[in-house]
């Protein structure tokens, strides 16, 4: 059965998406993924009648194509799980079970995603952690509240001595009911602000995915100048976080010069977002139809001189960091994820690229102004903390170049246009490369033009399991370092 071929941010009529028998759907999905396609989204859309429609979105990264199909299943029924054949589907199927009650029969690890965790709600089924047996085995439990000023989640390590044999991660503590709120209050401004808080460190990333989807559904094109300002903001966000992560990685190996130098540069980067939008994280900048704030002539000069200074200092600081033997001895060969494992579990973003998967939405599925200039999806093979750290540096330099070019070529004209009403009966997939990797928002509208389903996937949804595998057979004291090299979002996962 043929799946519908679409491109990024292309709205299609819901009626055009082939609805196929669940067994054919499953077989087609497995066949396509074994032939090199990648799972982008896989979710349940409960209908008003007694059925649930499953939708899957697969990516052909080399061809800039997405393949979509659906399958109707009776509510409360079960279906043969995809996960035994495609491990990357494991967390998607767990979510499907939790959100719709459809049981993926044969799923090896039907652990709760956001509900029924930690025995908090007695009406929900409690979950038993994996346990390693043996006289020498001990468990270390960390969280939900962590030592630092960060979001909550629970980590449970099974160790002998210092060696971690298994890490089990329990998330869901941050669950705010975000997808439901997107449907509950459909005021466009409310939805925009909600999109900015999906992950507060990825305001522009998730915000871009949202505005692109809304513009596609409303049939409007954001003006060129606004597209360029969006690119500048998205790259500034990437530069800011990557610098912050290099600072934190330095701190985790007690390299204090790196910690303070990269930390101070990160402040400069996010203060540039403040100059543009009045917020260090770019809040309030994006709006469907354009951007809220323009970049003036004086601002252009400020941004360009900051970019030059950041490039100069980043190159010097990276030279010092990545030639320090005490740093390299901690970074190299620590927390390795092989390419085969990375592909199996579906890693995305810098974590995937560090393990040799050169995918990047900006390069593979360009949107907005990204369609008009090249972006390189840099990758490394070693899959260790070093690769994940070094790629951050390479990406900072690329992002600074993009910012410089966009500021210098900033066109004339308006920065926003009026948006039209949202079309009914549509389906759109909006992908954006946030600093963590592939962000996917799929929006389905009902006949009345209201959102019927707003499905969000933060790259953390793909990548958390990668962290669990990265620390296997490592010393437990390397956990903070591995963790920071991924720097995944709790609320982006928990929604």
């Amino acid at each position, binding site marked *: 059965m043929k799946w519908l071929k679409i491109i990024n941010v292309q709205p299609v009529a819901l009626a055009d998406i082939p609805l196929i028998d669940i067994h054919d759907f499953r077989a087609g999905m497995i066949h396509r993924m074994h032939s090199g396609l990648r799972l982008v989204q896989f979710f349940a859309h409960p209908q008003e009648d007694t059925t649930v429609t499953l939708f899957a979105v697969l990516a052909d990264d080399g061809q800039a194509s997405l393949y979509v199909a659906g399958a109707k299943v009776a509510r409360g029924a079960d279906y043969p799980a995809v996960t035994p054949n495609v491990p990357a589907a494991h967390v998607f199927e767990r979510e499907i079970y939790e959100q719709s009650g459809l049981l993926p029969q044969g799923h090896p690890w039907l652990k709760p995603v*956001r509900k029924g*965790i*930690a025995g*908090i*709600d007695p009406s929900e089924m409690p979950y038993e952690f994996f346990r390693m047996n043996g006289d020498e085995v001990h468990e270390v439990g960390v969280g*939900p*509240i962590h*030592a*630092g*000023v*960060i*979001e*909550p989640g629970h980590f449970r390590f099974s160790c002998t001595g210092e060696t971690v044999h298994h890490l089990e991660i329990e998330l869901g*503590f*941050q*669950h*705010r*009911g975000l997808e*439901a*709120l997107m449907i*509950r*209050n459909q*005021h466009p*401004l*409310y939805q925009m*602000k*909600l999109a900015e*808080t*999906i*992950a*507060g*460190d990825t*305001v522009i990333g998730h915000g871009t995915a949202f505005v692109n989807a809304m513009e596609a559904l409303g049939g409007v094109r954001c003006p060129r100048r606004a597209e360029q300002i969006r690119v500048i903001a998205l790259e500034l966000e990437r530069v800011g976080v990557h610098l*912050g992560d290099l600072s934190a990685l330095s701190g985790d190996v007690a390299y204090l*010069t790196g910690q*303070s*130098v990269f*930390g*101070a540069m990160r*402040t400069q980067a996010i203060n540039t977002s*403040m*100059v543009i*939008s*009045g*917020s*260090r*994280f770019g*809040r*309030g900048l994006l709006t469907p139809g354009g951007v*809220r704030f323009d970049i003036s002539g004086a601002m252009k000069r400020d941004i360009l001189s900051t970019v030059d200074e950041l490039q100069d*200092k980043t190159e*010097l*600081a990276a*030279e*010092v960091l990545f*030639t320090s033997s005490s740093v390299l001895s901690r970074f190299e060969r620590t927390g390795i994820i092989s390419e085969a494992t990375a592909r199996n579990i579906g890693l995305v973003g810098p974590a995937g690229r560090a393990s040799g998967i050169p995918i990047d939405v900006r390069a593979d599925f360009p949107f907005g102004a990204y369609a008009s200039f090249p972006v390189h999806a840099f990758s490394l093979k070693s899959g260790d903390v070093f690769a994940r750290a070094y790629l951050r540096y390479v990406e900072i330099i690329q992002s600074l170049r993009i910012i410089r070019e966009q500021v210098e070529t900033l066109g004339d004209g308006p920065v926003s246009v009026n948006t039209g009403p949202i079309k009914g009966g549509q389906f759109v997939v909006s992908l954006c490369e946030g600093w963590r990797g592939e962000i996917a928002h799929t929006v389905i509208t009902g006949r009345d033009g209201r959102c019927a389903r707003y499905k969000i996937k933060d790259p953390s949804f793909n990548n958390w399991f990668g962290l669990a595998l990265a620390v296997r057979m490592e010393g437990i004291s390397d956990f903070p370092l591995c963790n920071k090299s991924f720097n995944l*979002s*709790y*609320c982006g996962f*928990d929604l």
Partner: protein
Amino acid sequence: MIDLLSLRKKHGRQAIPDIMKAQLPDNFRGFPLLNEALSAGGRSALAGACPTGAIQASPLHLDMGKCIFCGECEHVSNGAIRFTGNHLLGSASREGLVVTSGKTPDVYERTAIGNRREIHRLFGRSLKLRQVSAAGCNGCEMELAAAGNVNFDMGRFGIDFVASPRHADGIVITGPVSRNMAPALRDAIESIGEPRVIIAVGACAISGGLFADSPELDRSFFDVFTVDLYIPGCPPHPLTFIRGVLSFLERA
């Protein structure tokens, strides 16, 4: 080695020399000035322009405990609402966060926190805080972490975040408090000996913010425990947090 020395020289001194004198750029959206006379005719539009319902039309007022400082109301307000660059927003009472027409930043700054001799005596020279993110989006968390970085260096005032609630004099809450974090938040506060202070940071912690209507929240914590200091924002700037706490400690 030469590179390292050159890097250190370029790095220079990063700390803001005088936190009391630090100003934010003009486009920062801080304390809102309200002018009721200018809102005639468009008041319902104003209230409708707020994604968190922070604006009441008649009499005109704006609740900074709900406000996410997005500035959308300013665009449609015809001058009735104007966000100033003033970042001193902390308040010792929930009611104090409600800004009425004609209230100026000067008056707000003098009255919002008020005299707390006892707090000064207990914590004036050292305040150790345990931060708990209860479904915070990482915006407030990043800004609180930044308050301790090389630029803002809150540690110079004896104010620090510590790892264990057992080492803490108080708790800083961010996020709207999800059902799944409610028990852990309760455990954390109960692990802190008295006297202790409770600080709520950001629109989510103060009022639920954008998530106020979500059935996934459990805000019963605030029925049981009294917040001593509110720091509004989405997220609040590190200077807003530091200045609010200093004022609370009567250090400023």
